[in-house]
């Protein structure tokens, strides 16, 4: 297998793909000290192991990767080897990042065919992924090989194909993440995971689509299942969480209504007050007055 490292701004193979920051295939036959210190990842980085055994730390957790395994690193995650170097073996990697060289929108649309909304959902799913290692996921290796062929041979249509392959890679990974999470899990278990996700990111303006994708369900199937299980449509269920968290903040803190509203995911204090009154019959300030200082 031929080894290569393509780098944005250096390798002319990448000149039409500013979002591909680095693409490489490397065989490590000798120990190269300090080749893999633990540092903060700055782009979306995907490793694929083809030979050997790699022992890595990802966000202070220890992982061992074997051939066929994929590591998926988000920007901001700490990644490296405790030994400070790459173990012996063969690896592919790809770094994808925002295009800094040419801020034109046309260029960005060129590289990704994933619709803006889906892209956002995909980003969410990636950022909520707690397990950065996808074991035995050979599809990634196959896509990397095709990507290499396209970039080096540059046959007619290679610019389109390259973009498609990157999209294909991201979609495959996201679907695999969702499958991995829901496999052998019944709805109640996956729902609890989603529940926690909503709580951890309560100020986010969740859409039903974002929630559905984390459970690998279509929007209508997801809505129906949530309704059956919880008695509420997804967004109404979310409102229960928002209001109950808001009640805690009203009772226990002196935060302003606007702060409480935004912390718990309402658009505004007005939106918060209307929803609060609809469910409890009280305005938030009246509710607060009734519940404190009666002693």
């Amino acid at each position: 297998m031929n080894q290569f490292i393509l780098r944005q701004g250096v390798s002319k193979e990448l000149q039409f793909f500013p979002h591909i920051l680095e693409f490489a295939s490397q065989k490590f036959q000798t120990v190269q000290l300090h080749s893999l210190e633990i540092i903060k990842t700055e782009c979306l980085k995907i490793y694929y192991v083809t030979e050997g055994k790699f022992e890595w730390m990802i966000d202070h957790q220890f992982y061992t990767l074997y051939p066929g395994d994929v590591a998926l690193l988000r920007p901001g995650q700490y990644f490296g080897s405790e030994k400070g170097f790459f173990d012996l073996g063969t690896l592919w990697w790809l770094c994808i990042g925002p295009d800094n060289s040419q801020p034109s929108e046309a260029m960005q649309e060129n590289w990704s065919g994933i619709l803006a909304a889906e892209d956002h959902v995909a980003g969410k799913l990636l950022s909520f992924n707690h397990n950065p290692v996808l074991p035995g996921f050979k599809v990634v290796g196959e896509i990397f090989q095709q990507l290499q062929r396209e970039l080096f041979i540059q046959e007619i249509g290679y610019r389109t194909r390259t973009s498609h392959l990157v999209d294909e890679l991201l979609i495959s990974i996201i679907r695999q993440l969702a499958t991995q999470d829901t496999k052998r899990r019944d709805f109640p278990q996956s729902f609890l995971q989603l529940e926690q996700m909503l709580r951890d990111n309560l100020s986010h303006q969740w859409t039903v689509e974002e929630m559905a994708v984390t459970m690998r369900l279509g929007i209508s199937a997801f809505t129906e299942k949530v309704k059956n299980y919880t008695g509420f449509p997804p967004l109404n269920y979310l409102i229960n969480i928002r209001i109950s968290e808001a009640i805690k903040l009203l009772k226990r803190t002196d935060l302003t209504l606007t702060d409480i509203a935004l912390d718990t995911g309402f658009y505004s204090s007005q939106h918060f007050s209307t929803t609060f009154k609809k469910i409890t019959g009280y305005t938030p300030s009246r509710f607060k007055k009734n519940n404190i200082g009666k002693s």
Partner: protein
Amino acid sequence: MQKLVNKKQKKENHQNRDCIITVDIGTSAVRIFAFEMEGAIIATMKGFYPTFHTQPDYSEQDPEQIFVTVLNVLRNILTEKIHPNKYKVAAICFSAAMHSVLPVDKNGTPLGNAIVWADNRAKKEAAELKNSELGEKIYHATGTPIHPMSPLAKIAWLRNNDKERFASTYKFVSIKDYILQQLTGEYVIDHSLASSTGLLNIHTLEWNSDSLAFAGIDGDKLPKPVPVYYSGLTFHKQYCANLGVPAKTKIIIGASDGCLATLGSGVWGEGKATITIEASGAVRVAGKKVLEDKKLRFFNYLLADGYYVSGGPTNNGGVIFEWFTRQFGTFQDYTDFEENVSDFFKEAAMVAPGSDGLIFLPYLLGERAPIWNANARGLYFGINIKHEQKHFVRATIEGILYEIYSIGKILEEHRSIESLYVNGTFASLPLWAQIMADMFNKPVYVNDTHDTIGKGALLLSLTGMGIYKNLEEASATIRFPHVFLPSQRDHNVYMSYFSIFERLSSKLEEEFSQIALLQQRK
């Protein structure tokens, strides 16, 4: 046009008809039913809330989310199903899961989450009491088995391990008491729910001084115990207005879910026992006397008018079959969990009673009645080379039901049981009901509606309102559409295996302790 007329007629027919709303604050959801006075269901709605397991032994729920969910579901059912059909709310009655504890401060603000029934953090406190004279005294006075589930042990835990929270607690309430306090401003607890705390003397109906001393509190740290028919509460004006009910709407405090499920399943009086299998399970009888079990294996919870609901709970009900499905289901092509479960039921039906000699001890979650051993663990016993997957499927179901049978068998030492009445998602399945009929060698009556707690609350309300003379008359209105008759031959098969099941459960006590210890070390 015809439709319109019909609709109009229907509306007129319903003009001002009374209805009763029952609110059950259960272990994972609030279920609200609206009943006509004659017992027909007008509507039902539910609202889910999660349980948090922040540490291995911890099970907690957010009281505010439960409160918001109760309000929301109550408002929805009233505005969507009751008011448009011109029903008048004659009473709202409450029931709830037992054994929860929530410390609140002077303003009634929760100090953290509620500690719910499944929480085992008070293991040490319960063990300390368990084999002591004081423990025995408390058990006989309160009717609640000495167990980490009981609020008695949980409050003692707070005193020992969360001193700050313990010190700032104005009252220790249950989740239901909290909801009622929010709605009405009063701190009250019904006798039934109070009788499952380990803190109420079920003979005098006052807080039990030995329990209070063990928990380290005075009686004024607890809400005021009142009878289950108590209707001296009124909702705050704003809540009435928001719910669209008159300010003087009758609120009946109600009872615990376990007692009401027994009442609502029609089991009241001699010769009858009820079996409930949901995630966990229980075998219960109702009567005017408490069960004085020397080995302290049964609970005696009070319902009303001197009626006690007695019996034994198991941890290992439907949850064990769900565990089995999750591990061994095929889940091909993203099939639903439910499909895998029903595939397994089909497989189990293909195996003869007794699973050709494969026996399963279902104690994956440790066990309460009758062995009361938190260290007990599961076991497949008697596996031979001819056993296939389907045998394991059936053995798993049979093991869960041998456990139910073992509770029933000991109950029979105290009460004669002629017929069984089953309810709950799993117990009412035909295969399961038949196996129980065969094991007990008694007819099994199945009520496959899922509203026994709501029904119980309805019967309690109607009795409290004087429409039925007493609970016995009320419970006689329950009908059982299906009956499963026992087969003597299958009974004999099950009994030959059950004696092995029973002996394994007690013989392995030492090994259970050893393996539990090793598992904890992990």
